[in-house]
């Protein structure tokens, strides 16, 4: 307490410099907190959008490794030449049974799909599309497509045998509108008329211009794959289980199962890099604030050389002298951290209210801010560490001062 009292007195008696240094730390902490809140907010916002837009686990009619040929299995051969590989029929076999076996241990919603390529034609114009055959009720349980609907409805696919839901951008390119009849032609040359019953806008151009939904039966007919699906989408009750579910499902069914994390591996890595950059910048800000503290404590040490000699003559050991000046750095650091937390909270709260317009399709939006006590803990810890180091360097110098030299200089 005595050392703290001496340290606090030194700091209090240099009010102007103390305020400036405290503000330096406070700005560092405040901006760090606001920046971290914004960065994590945007990351979470993006992830939420992403997770809502795609299935948590997607099972495809593919294998990670090429299927073993019968000759390899029968003769245990290392390599064969001159044999034509067996053509395997694509698609998930016994989809109803496969889904039922997953339901036994997976908590969530399931939807089956058949995707394929088709050409959409209207008024003499063609667009290549990825056509997805769905069971609308099931699809709505695993995706948030209904929220992206701008005209018509997704549920209309249930009541319209040849209904079609496409992106509004695709419709605009063709000049088509809700209620118009378009022609879809498969790669096998089969053409079929569909009626546009809904238009969506996701904000993702590839989907808005190149994705179409139709009833599963109609698509199976068009693509000549009766009773076949090539994908099962799963929306999990607990998203954290995505990787585990994908691994087990793949082992169980033999088809490639991809979790949302695996599907967006590159993006996840980008977030790690982004966070590393952010925390480096935050650290740099606080190191700069530390220089301010270093400056003031160094000045105090210089000015208080006589007091150091007095304290040593009174019987204060070097460790006490060192502690006094480290405490001075920490006092400034703590004050700065407290003010900085308030500033950070204020800034974050203000940023959360800022509205701006992204595109004409999305209405006014706000900056995504995520409030987390961890941001405050991290910024304060860095600030205190920086303050401690900034105080320690001049403190060590102070402790080493020879009192006799100072007393001689004063007399």
């Amino acid at each position, binding site marked *: 307490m*005595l050392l703290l009292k*001496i340290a606090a*007195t*030194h700091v209090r*008696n240099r009010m102007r410099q103390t305020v400036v240094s405290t503000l330096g730390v406070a700005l560092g902490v405040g901006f760090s907190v606001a920046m971290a809140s914004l960065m994590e907010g945007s990351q979470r916002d993006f992830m939420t959008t992403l997770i809502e837009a795609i299935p948590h686990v997607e099972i495809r009619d593919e294998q990670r490794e090429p299927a073993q040929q019968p000759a390899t299995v029968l003769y245990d051969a290392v390599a064969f030449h001159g044999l034509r590989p067996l053509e395997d029929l694509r698609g998930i076999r016994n989809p109803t049974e496969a889904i039922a076996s997953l339901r036994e241990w997976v908590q969530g919603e399931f939807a089956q799909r058949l995707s394929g390529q088709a050409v959409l034609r209207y008024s003499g114009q063609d667009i290549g599309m990825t056509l997805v055959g769905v069971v609308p009720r099931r699809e709505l349980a695993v995706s948030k497509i209904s929220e992206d609907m701008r005209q018509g409805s997704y549920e209309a696919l249930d009541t319209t045998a040849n209904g079609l839901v496409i992106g509004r951008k695709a419709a605009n390119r063709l000049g088509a509108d809700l209620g118009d009849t378009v022609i879809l032609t498969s790669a096998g040359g089969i053409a079929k008329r569909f009626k546009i019953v809904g238009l969506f806008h996701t904000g993702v151009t590839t989907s808005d211009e190149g994705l179409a939904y139709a009833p599963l039966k109609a698509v199976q007919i068009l693509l000549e794959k009766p009773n076949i699906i090539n994908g099962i989408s799963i929306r999990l009750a607990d998203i954290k289980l995505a990787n585990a579910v994908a691994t087990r499902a793949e082992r169980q069914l033999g088809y490639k199962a991809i979790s949302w994390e695996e599907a967006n591996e590159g993006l996840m890595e980008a977030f790690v890099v982004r966070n590393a950059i952010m925390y480096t910048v935050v650290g740099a800000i606080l190191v700069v604030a530390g220089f301010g503290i270093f400056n003031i404590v160094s000045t105090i040490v210089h000015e208080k050389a*006589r*007091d150091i*000699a*007095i*304290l*040593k*003559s*009174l*019987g*204060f*050991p*070097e*460790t*006490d002298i060192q502690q006094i000046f480290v405490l001075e750095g920490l006092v400034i650091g703590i004050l700065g951290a407290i003010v900085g937390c308030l500033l950070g909270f204020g800034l974050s709260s203000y940023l959360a209210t800022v509205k701006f317009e992204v595109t004409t399709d999305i209405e006014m939006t706000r900056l995504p801010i995520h409030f987390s006590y961890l941001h405050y803990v991290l910024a304060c810890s860095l600030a205190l560490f920086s303050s401690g180091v900034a105080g320690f360097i001049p403190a060590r110098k102070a402790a080493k001062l*020879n*009192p*006799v030299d100072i*007393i*001689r200089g*004063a*007399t």
Partner: protein
Amino acid sequence: MIPAAATRSETAGSLLEARSLTRILPAVVPVTLVEDVNIKIERAEFVAITGPSGSGKSSLLYLLGLLDRPTAGDMLIEDTRTGDLSSADLARLRLEKIGFVFQFHFLLPEFTALENILIPMQKLGALPAKSQLEHAEGLLADLGLEDYLDRRPAQLSGGQRQRVAVARALANSPDLILADEPTGSLDSKATEQVFDSLQSIVKRQNTTVVAVTHDMELASRMKRRIHLVDGRVDYDRVQP
């Protein structure tokens, strides 16, 4: 704590003993401040260290007070050799046994007179907080400063500051007070007050006072006088 037993001297009795004490300032041309000083100081002595400027009076005082380390020789406090002690041990000895009074009071400017006296007491922690306060107030009252407890050094006269410095030196009831020109910056009235204070400490508290002074008249009023010339003891005599 101080590892006393291991460094006990064979000769016992003296409060302070300097054995062949030498201090050389390292430089391109080394400067000898104190050379081969051998003195013993007993309890309740009132000793003046005199000598011309540059004779090594203050340097000897800093060595006696364990503020500086000798280049050669050793210092003994109550028969405890100090040469091998760590700086932390020396600090502890200063805190417990030695009080300093400097020429320019050397009070902590941001603290009041009372706080300046309380600081060494709080550091030692030998007394409970209430007793510390009572003791500090008593010391200031004894020196006629009972009305100046809450004044900062800048609000006190030179004589008052120096008396506060004397009170601070007495705070932990040390065995030894070392004063470096305690009246050097004071007028004659203040000089008398401070000198009387030091004299009464010797008489009333059985404390040893060693004072460096230029003032021959003051030195003549002390019981013993050690005169230095060129860092060596010229004479060491008890005065009538």
